[in-house]
């Protein structure tokens, strides 16, 4: 923005939060500043600089997580459906970007993160109204007094740890978009768009917000105060992947199969999109996991590294299983394995070492491979894009393995270990209990509420498009458009 003026003033925005320091600095030109003044200036500069550094990484992370939904997931998922439904899937992604963001700003963030344990009005079950409509998040004018009694107005941005609360809200808000978007994989190619919209509003409000509060706002499942000692969930094993994966399974079961499922071929119409989307998810996941440190520090780097290793091992494992069992590694297998590895490391990202991370990724590749091939075929449900097989199963595996591999060598001392053993390999068997309890609570909660919601919606609005519409494809029937017109 305004450049020339900006030079006249001191150091843009944030500097204004430290008017004393700023003034000290300006006076410096006339008389040499005292040690006291220089120290105050250095302190202010340090604060500004720390905020700048952490914020730089966290804003980038927020952008990366949105990037995961579109183009990432939109591309990954839409490549897997038939051509006639390609826009249907993409529409779910982009529309949810709009819808969930508005809900998050209005009340979602408050229901998730409103209230601080120990202070008035805090509940371990659901967030309070602290941040409703972005109050206490947005900037506000504060008028201090100068030493000479004149007004010293400044604009204050509320902080959350080392970053502006705005940044925290944004980062977490991106999770509120991608989590419901993941569920879309289960009912792809057959769900009525209008019902999906209502379902997601309810799902986000009644399932996501409480879960998020339980796990990440010192609630029911949080490490420490939570049930059975609570669970460690660095970046969303329970909140994001188990919740969406289990709800996806319930959707697949309640909605029933696609017309022609099992008899007609339904191969992915554009695997190139799926691979490219997987690459984008991999890149974006660095923001998802390393960003969940909510700061740019050594632990963020560690989380980034284990994320990368797990994804890599997952890629090799899934493709390797295919190679062994069917003679050919497939690119869909490699892409799926990468995602499985990423899902599995998510809850563990801030607690485990690189080699265990590779083991976790490899385990996820193998287990999710069987979930998406054998398990699904055995039970015969139509989880179109394997949202359950990858996110539900992979997330559960990750949550439990976090209890195994979490270690005080990695975990934050002040928040987690206090220097004591953390996971099973550290010699502490307790954590696994907390992890399993958290998994069970999440599974039951997500499954039951999703089931009830779907039944109500089925009775009122109807879940599926009409038979003809399904045959014609969602692109034309729901949106009146075609994906590709190559003539």
């Amino acid at each position, binding site marked *: 923005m305004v450049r020339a003026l900006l030079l006249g003033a001191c150091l843009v925005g944030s500097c204004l939060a430290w008017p004393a320091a700023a003034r000290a600095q300006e006076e410096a030109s006339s008389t040499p500043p005292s040690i006291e003044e220089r120290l105050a200036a250095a302190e202010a500069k340090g604060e500004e600089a720390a905020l700048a550094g952490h914020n730089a990484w966290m804003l980038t992370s927020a952008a990366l997580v949105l990037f995961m939904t579109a183009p990432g997931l939109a591309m990954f998922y839409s490549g897997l459906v038939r051509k006639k439904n390609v826009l249907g899937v993409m529409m779910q992604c982009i529309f949810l970007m709009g819808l969930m963001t508005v809900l998050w700003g209005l009340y979602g963030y408050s229901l998730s993160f409103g209230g601080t344990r120990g202070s008035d009005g805090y509940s371990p079950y659901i967030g309070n109204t602290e941040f409703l409509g972005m109050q206490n998040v947005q900037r506000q004018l504060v008028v201090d007094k100068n030493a000479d009694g004149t007004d010293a107005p400044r604009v204050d941005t509320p902080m959350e740890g080392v970053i502006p609360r705005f940044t925290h809200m944004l980062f977490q808000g991106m999770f509120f978009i991608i989590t419901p978007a993941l569920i879309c994989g289960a009912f792809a190619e057959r769900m009525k768009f209008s019902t999906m919209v209502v379902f997601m509003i309810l799902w986000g409000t009644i399932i996501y917000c409480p879960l998020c509060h339980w796990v990440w706002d010192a609630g029911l499942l949080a490490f420490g105060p939570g049930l059975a000692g609570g669970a460690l969930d660095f970046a969303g094993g329970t909140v994001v992947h188990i919740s969406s994966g289990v709800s996806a399974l319930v959707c697949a079961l309640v909605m029933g199969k696609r017309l*022609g499922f099992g*008899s*007609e*071929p339904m191969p992915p119409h554009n695997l190139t999109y799926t691979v490219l989307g997987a690459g984008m998810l991999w890149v974006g996941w660095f923001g998802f996991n390393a960003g969940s440190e909510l700061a740019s520090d050594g632990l963020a780097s560690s989380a980034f590294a284990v994320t990368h290793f797990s994804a890599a091992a997952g890629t090799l494992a899934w493709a390797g299983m295919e190679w062994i069992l069917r003679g050919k590694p497939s690119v869909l297998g490699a892409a799926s394995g990468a995602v499985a590895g990423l899902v599995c490391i998510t809850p563990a990202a801030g607690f485990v070492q690189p080699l265990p991370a590779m083991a976790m990724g490899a385990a996820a590749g193998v287990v999710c491979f069987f979930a998406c091939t054998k398990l699904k075929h055995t039970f015969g449900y139509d989880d179109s894009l394997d949202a359950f097989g990858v996110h539900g199963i992979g997330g559960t595996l990750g949550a439990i393995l976090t209890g195994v591999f979490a270690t005080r060598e990695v975990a934050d001392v002040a928040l987690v270990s206090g220097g004591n053993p953390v996971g099973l390999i550290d010699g502490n068997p307790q954590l696994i209990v907390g992890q399993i309890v958290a998994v069970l609570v999440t599974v039951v909660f997500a499954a039951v509420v999703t089931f009830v919601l779907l039944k109500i919606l089925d009775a009122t609005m109807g879940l599926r498009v009409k038979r003809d519409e399904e*045959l*014609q494809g969602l692109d*034309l029937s729901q949106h*009146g*458009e*075609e994906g590709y017109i190559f003539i």
Partner: protein
Amino acid sequence: MKKIEAIIRHFKLEDVKNALTERGVHGMTICEVRGFGRQKGHTEMYRGTEYAVDFVPKVKVEVVCSDANLALVIDTIMRAAQTGQIGDGKLFISDLSDVVRIRTGETGEDAL
């Protein structure tokens, strides 16, 4: 020999293929086409501009058979492709003066 060109619905292709092979007809050639007829198309709308898409995607199945087999093939396709709703498609039957198998040079019914 006869050539039957059948214009059918996409999702009936599997059924038609299976029905034909079950009845011993082991050759056919298919092609994506778009048809205009009684069945209505659809409209698409892009930023306020409406397009009537009158052509409906169809599959054309071409089967060449001996004169003797003609009735069988027609009947088989008919049954497999029918839904009873407008747009089921048509069969066009014509004569071929000859057929040649490129690989061997065989002609006539031997070439099928």
